[in-house]
């Protein structure tokens, strides 16, 4: 059973460019969350997708957008890249709403984005 997968592993972009990161959730999971982890910091919640809609959003500008496909995979798009967007981007998947039970999140290996 494959866990959460992310692509690409590493990416280098220049300021002003746009980037798309991809995530495939663990089998049986329909909810995908994205986190940004800057160097030396803890991961910060960007947003969460469920049923192809953005369900929650953290404190990130509109340059950060996402999408979820019918097969539950997800993309994170960042426009007009800034140097400060350099970070490890982590994807986590979980099963959907489960009537009050905790939805365990499983994290992928991340995509390391460097903006020059």
């Amino acid at each position, binding site marked *: 059973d494959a866990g959460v997968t992310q692509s690409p592993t590493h990416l280098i972009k220049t300021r002003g460019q746009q980037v798309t990161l991809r995530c495939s959730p663990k089998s049986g999971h329909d909810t995908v969350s994205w986190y940004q982890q800057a160097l030396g910091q803890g991961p910060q919640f960007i947003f969460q997708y469920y049923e192809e809609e953005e369900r929650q959003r953290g404190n990130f500008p509109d340059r950060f957008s996402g999408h979820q496909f019918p097969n539950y995979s997800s993309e994170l798009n960042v426009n007009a890249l800034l140097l400060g967007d350099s970070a490890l981007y982590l994807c986590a998947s979980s099963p959907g709403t489960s009537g009050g039970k905790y939805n365990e999140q499983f*994290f992928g290996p991340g995509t390391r984005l460097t903006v020059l």
Partner: protein
Amino acid sequence: AQKVTQAQTEISVVEKEDVTLDCVYETRDTTYYLFWYKQPPSGELVFLIRRNSFDEQNEISGRYSWNFQKSTSSFNFTITASQVVDSAVYFCALSYFRDDKIIFGKGTRLHILP
């Protein structure tokens, strides 16, 4: 306000020593979860433990133990007889019953010296 504070940025101990990683959290909610994750150099977050706010029982898993005290809003993590493989960044985190968003502390980088 919701916040997780890990005051220890970096800790170094010699192998076989015991080490405790501190975590203090702030929340106004009464229903929440607390977590510890390990992040080795590869970058992937490894889940270690989850406790809910109604369960203050301490937990032991092999060389790992956790001390949850609501009175001091702390959820400390102790590694007994540390090993070089324990070297990693450890994150304490918080989330709520009402949603899945996880709030992480800044992490403690642990070096176990041979």
